[in-house]
């Protein structure tokens, strides 16, 4: 994830290069470090460096990293020829390298030749069955072909070994949500919360999955996680505010008539008030709709 300060720095560098201020190499390094996907810019700034032998030789060993970066960016922009040139150069320098082999597979993927890519990846995996990057490529490929169940299967197999790779857990969670397999998705989000207990996004996503599953117990838990999101974001997350209100409403519906344990009603009414305040500040024309909705849920009088 890219922090706000880093993004500002990146954007400043980008406009600086755009306006002829130099610093293209710094921009490319930063883009690589932050793993941002700005392929058009990377291609635009990187290609002139590669085409200029003097600028290229100035980079020393980094030259080859740039070739790789530009090749991937070119594939992303469907500039297959450029990507092919880069890969040919790399292959000449590093024959038999796994990393270049991966690029070759990606090139096939970019051209839409999935069977060929599959063959390339299998070849690499035969030599080194624990190559994480290749296994992830295979997942991405299954996803690109729309075969989500295969992607899930591959990811599960991958996580069987690399179970501390939290990017993979996150990917799996998102796929499960899209497949409406909420129980499994909840498990993945639990893993993510364990990994980084202070990231509100995971709390929010977990709460949402629980709310979607429904049931009294899940709703109560979901409300708690919405509450923790509110706490972790300092009340700035509108979705979490809504979440608390919705959970409270659903719980009161479910618990109706039953011996309901008296929960404090403070949280949801406070959340409703906070929502109203936010809407008054930012979208005054929608306050009426919100008021009606909240009144319907009996959260404001």
């Amino acid at each position, binding site marked *: 994830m890219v922090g706000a300060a880093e993004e500002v720095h990146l954007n400043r560098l980008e406009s600086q290069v755009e306006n002829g201020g130099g610093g293209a190499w710094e921009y490319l390094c930063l883009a690589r470090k932050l793993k941002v996907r700005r392929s058009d810019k990377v291609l635009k700034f990187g290609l002139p460096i590669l085409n200029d032998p003097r600028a290229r030789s100035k980079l020393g060993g980094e030259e080859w990293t740039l070739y790789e970066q530009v090749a991937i960016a070119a594939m992303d922009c469907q500039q297959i020829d450029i990507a092919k040139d880069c890969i040919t150069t790399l292959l000449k320098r590093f024959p038999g390298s796994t990393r270049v082999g991966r690029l070759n597979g990606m090139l096939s993927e970019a051209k839409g030749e999935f069977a060929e890519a599959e063959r390339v990846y299998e070849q690499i995996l035969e030599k080194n069955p*624990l190559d994480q990057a290749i296994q992830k490529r295979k997942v991405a490929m299954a996803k690109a072909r729309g075969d989500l169940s295969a992607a899930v299967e591959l990811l599960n197999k991958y996580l069987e070994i690399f179970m501390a790779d939290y990017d993979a857990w996150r990917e799996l969670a998102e796929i499960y949500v899209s497949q409406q397999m909420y129980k499994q998705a909840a498990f993945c989000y*639990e893993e993510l919360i364990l990994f980084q207990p202070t990231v509100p996004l995971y709390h929010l996503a977990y709460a949402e999955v629980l709310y979607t599953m429904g049931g009294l117990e899940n709703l109560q838990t979901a409300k708690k996680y919405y*509450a923790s999101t509110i706490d972790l974001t*300092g009340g700035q997350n509108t979705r979490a505010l809504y979440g608390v209100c919705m959970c409270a409403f659903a719980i009161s519906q479910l618990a109706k008539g039953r011996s309901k344990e008296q929960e404090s009603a403070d949280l949801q009414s406070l*959340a409703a008030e906070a929502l109203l305040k936010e809407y008054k500040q930012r979208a005054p024309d929608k306050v009426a709709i919100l008021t009606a909705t909240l009144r319907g849920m009996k959260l404001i009088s």
Partner: protein
Amino acid sequence: MSGEDLVLDTAIRDWVLIPLSVVMVLIGVLRYFVSKLMRSYQAPDQKVVRDGQVILRAGHLRAGANFIPPKTFYSRRTYFTNEENGILHVPKGQAQNAQAQMFSDPNMAVDMMKKNLSMIIPQTLTFAWVNFFFSGFVAAKIPFPLTQRFRSMLQNGIDLSTVDVSYVSSRSWYFLNLFGLRGLFSLILGEENATDDAQRMMQMSGFGFDPAKNLSAEKDSIDILQHDWALPKFEKRAEAVLRRIVS
């Protein structure tokens, strides 16, 4: 000890000091490339990788346990530590020690031997060469005085106690080069060059590592973990946050 200085022949500089340094550098570079050629890629063992990952994940479970609902925590704990097939559970007898594993794997032994040979052979040869041609005379003078304790370091090979300590014997010059050129090598060969002997020593000492021990230690600490769900407290905290916003 007389007050007058020993005058060193310029031929010594031209034929001993400079050639010795140049040869040391060249041998270092040569060794780097030879060891690069001999280095064999060793595919990591699946079980070792998995054990490492299991320990990492268990550590996260331990650290963040209070942030997930009780039920999910207990199911995870069972998954990690149950006595039949918990992933942290190491069956008795299977816990082989690393030493035995090292000897049972011939690849590892060969690899270590290669590393050692590439280190020892050139050193023995150059030392013999220096000893044969250049032993027993003064090769250089350092421009500042030193105490007697440095005599064994700087005048190795000359058994004269009357020579001033700031004179360096040729054999000592060899040793100084051997240990002092690391900085130069990392400059010309890149940061992580294979000639770094000190680093290699560190790696060798890391061989006592035993994954089974780590697994069972992690298992014990998860077993005694008390689960205290933190989330109910968050509702109160969220209320406080919202009150501040609303008011």
